[in-house]
C-alpha cells in the first residue's frame, strides 16, 4: 500500500521538477523572443520526454553515498519526496530557480535523519557529491559564459543590434534544446531511480547492481516530467529570463551553449552538476560579459539564498513528514494517506492563489525584443 503512495508522490515530484526546471532550458529563449512562450515549453516538454528514453543508465544512485542504503524504506522515500515537493512549490511561488535534485537529496537526508539519526547520513558523500560541485558549477558557468558573451559582442560590435541578433535567435533554439534534452535524461532518471528503489525495498522488483527499470516506470516518469515542463513554471522563467539581467539573443545563445557544454562535460567526467545552478550561473555571467548590460545582484543574491536553504529546508520538511507518518506506525499506510491529503489540499490552495496572481507567459518576454534595431554598443 505504501509503495503505491511512493509511486504517486514520486510522479508528482517529477511533475514539479518539470515545471520548476522549464526555465533552465527556455527562459532565455522566451525572453529574447526566439520562440513564443507556448512553443518553447512545448519543445522543452517533448525533449524532456525523449531525453527520458535516450539513456537508460539506471539512476538508483539518488541516495547512494548520501545516506546509508540499508535504512532506506518506502516511508523514508515517501517523506523525502514530500519534503522535496514542498520546497519545489515554495521556491516556484517565489520565482527562485533552485535545484530539484538538491531538494530531493535534502528530503532523503531529512527523512533518514528522522528515521535513524546522524549515523544514517554519509557526510563525506554529501560534501564531495553535492556541496563542492554546487560551489563550483555556477562559478565555472558564469566565468565561461561571461568570456563567451564578451567575445561574441566584440565580434558583432560593428553591426546594428537587431540585424546581428537575428542569427543568434535561431541558434538559441538549438542550444536551449540541448539543455532540455540533457535535463530529460538526468532528472527523469532520478525519479525512475526513486520509484525503482521503492519497488526493490518492497520486494516488487529484483535488486542488484544491474536491474532493469520497468518500462511502465520509464514511460510514467517521462510523461510526468514532460507534462510538468509543458505547464511552464512562468514565475521562474520570468526571474531567469528577465530579472537577473536583460537577456539579448547573443547572450542567450552564449549562456545556453556554455550551460549545455558544462553540463555534458561534467556529466562525462562523473560530476553530475545541477542544471539549475549551471544555467543560473551562465545567465548571470552573460550579463557580466555583455557590454553595458547590468546584472541585478539583489535577484542573484536571492537565488543564492534559495540554493543555501534548499537542502536544510527540504530536509526539515521531510523530517517533520516522517515524524507524522511514524505516529501511525512504521508500516501503516494511514500516515502516508494523511500526508498525501495534506499535500493535495495545499496544492489546491496554491493553485487557487496562483490563479489570482498569475504570472502569464507574455510576462516572461523582454519588453523590447521586437523593437527597431539599434547599434550593439549603444
Amino acid at each position, binding site marked *: 500500500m505504501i509503495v503505491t503512495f511512493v509511486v504517486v508522490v514520486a510522479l508528482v515530484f517529477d511533475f514539479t521538477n518539470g515545471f520548476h526546471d522549464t526555465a533552465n532550458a527556455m527562459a532565455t529563449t522566451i525572453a529574447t523572443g526566439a520562440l513564443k512562450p507556448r512553443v518553447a515549453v512545448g519543445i522543452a516538454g517533448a525533449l524532456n520526454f525523449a531525453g527520458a528514453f535516450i539513456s537508460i543508465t539506471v539512476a538508483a544512485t539518488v541516495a547512494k553515498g548520501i545516506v546509508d542504503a540499508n535504512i532506506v524504506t518506502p516511508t523514508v522515500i515517501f517523506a523525502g519526496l514530500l519534503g522535496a515537493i514542498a520546497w519545489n512549490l515554495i521556491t516556484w511561488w517565489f520565482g527562485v530557480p533552485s535545484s530539484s535534485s538538491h531538494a530531493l537529496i535534502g528530503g532523503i537526508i531529512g527523512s533518514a535523519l528522522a528515521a535513524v539519526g546522524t549515523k544514517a547520513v554519509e557526510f563525506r558523500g554529501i560534501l564531495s557529491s553535492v556541496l563542492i560541485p554546487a560551489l563550483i558549477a555556477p562559478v565555472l558557468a558564469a566565468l565561461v559564459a561571461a568570456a563567451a558573451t564578451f567575445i*561574441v559582442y566584440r565580434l558583432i560590435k560593428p553591426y546594428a543590434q537587431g540585424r546581428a541578433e537575428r542569427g543568434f535567435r535561431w541558434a538559441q533554439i538549438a542550444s536551449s534544446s540541448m539543455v532540455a534534452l540533457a535535463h530529460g535524461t538526468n532528472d527523469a532518471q532520478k525519479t525512475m531511480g526513486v520509484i525503482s528503489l521503492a519497488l526493490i525495498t518492497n520486494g516488487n522488483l529484483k535488486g542488484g547492481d544491474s536491474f532493469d527499470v520497468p518500462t511502465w516506470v520509464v514511460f510514467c516518469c517521462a510523461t510526468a516530467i514532460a507534462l510538468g515542463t509543458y505547464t511552464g513554471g512562468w514565475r521562474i522563467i520570468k526571474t531567469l529570463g528577465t530579472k537577473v539581467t536583460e537577456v539579448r539573443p547573443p547572450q542567450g545563445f552564449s549562456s545556453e551553449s556554455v550551460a549545455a557544454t558544462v553540463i555534458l562535460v561534467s556529466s562525462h567526467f562523473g560530476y553530475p552538476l545541477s542544471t539549475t545552478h549551471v544555467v543560473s550561473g551562465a545567465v548571470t555571467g552573460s550579463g557580466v560579459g555583455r557590454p553595458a548590460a547590468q546584472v541585478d545582484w539583489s535577484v542573484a543574491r536571492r537565488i543564492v539564498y534559495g540554493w543555501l536553504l534548499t537542502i536544510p529546508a527540504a530536509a526539515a520538511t521531510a523530517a517533520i513528514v516522517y515524524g507524522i507518518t511514524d505516529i501511525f506506525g512504521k508500516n501503516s499506510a494511514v500516515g502516508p494517506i494523511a500526508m498525501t491529503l495534506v499535500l493535495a489540499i495545499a496544492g489546491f490552495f496554491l493553485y487557487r492563489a496562483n490563479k489570482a496572481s498569475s504570472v502569464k507567459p507574455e510576462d516572461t518576454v523582454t519588453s523590447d525584443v521586437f523593437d527597431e534595431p539599434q547599434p550593439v554598443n549603444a
Partner: protein
Amino acid sequence: MSHFFLAADSSPLVDWSALGQVALISVIAGVLIASILGVGIVASLRASDERGRGNDSAALGMNVVTGVAVLLVAAAVVVGIYYIAHKG
C-alpha cells in the same frame, strides 16, 4: 594542500584532476562554440553587405565561412547528443 581534502579512508575527497579537466574543456568548448557561431553570423552579415556592393566573389567567400561555422556548431550539437545518449 591537497592532503587537506583527504579523509580518514585516504581516498581523495575531490578528484581535482578530473575537475581541472572539466573546467578546461568547458572553457575551451564553451568559448569556442559561441565564437565560431559569432564568426559565422558576422560572415553572413558581411556577405550581405558585399552582395549589396556588387562584390559577388567576396560574398561567396563569406557565405562559405558562414556555412563552415554552422557545420561546426551542428557537429558540436551531434557530439553533445552522443554524450547524452552514452553517459555513465
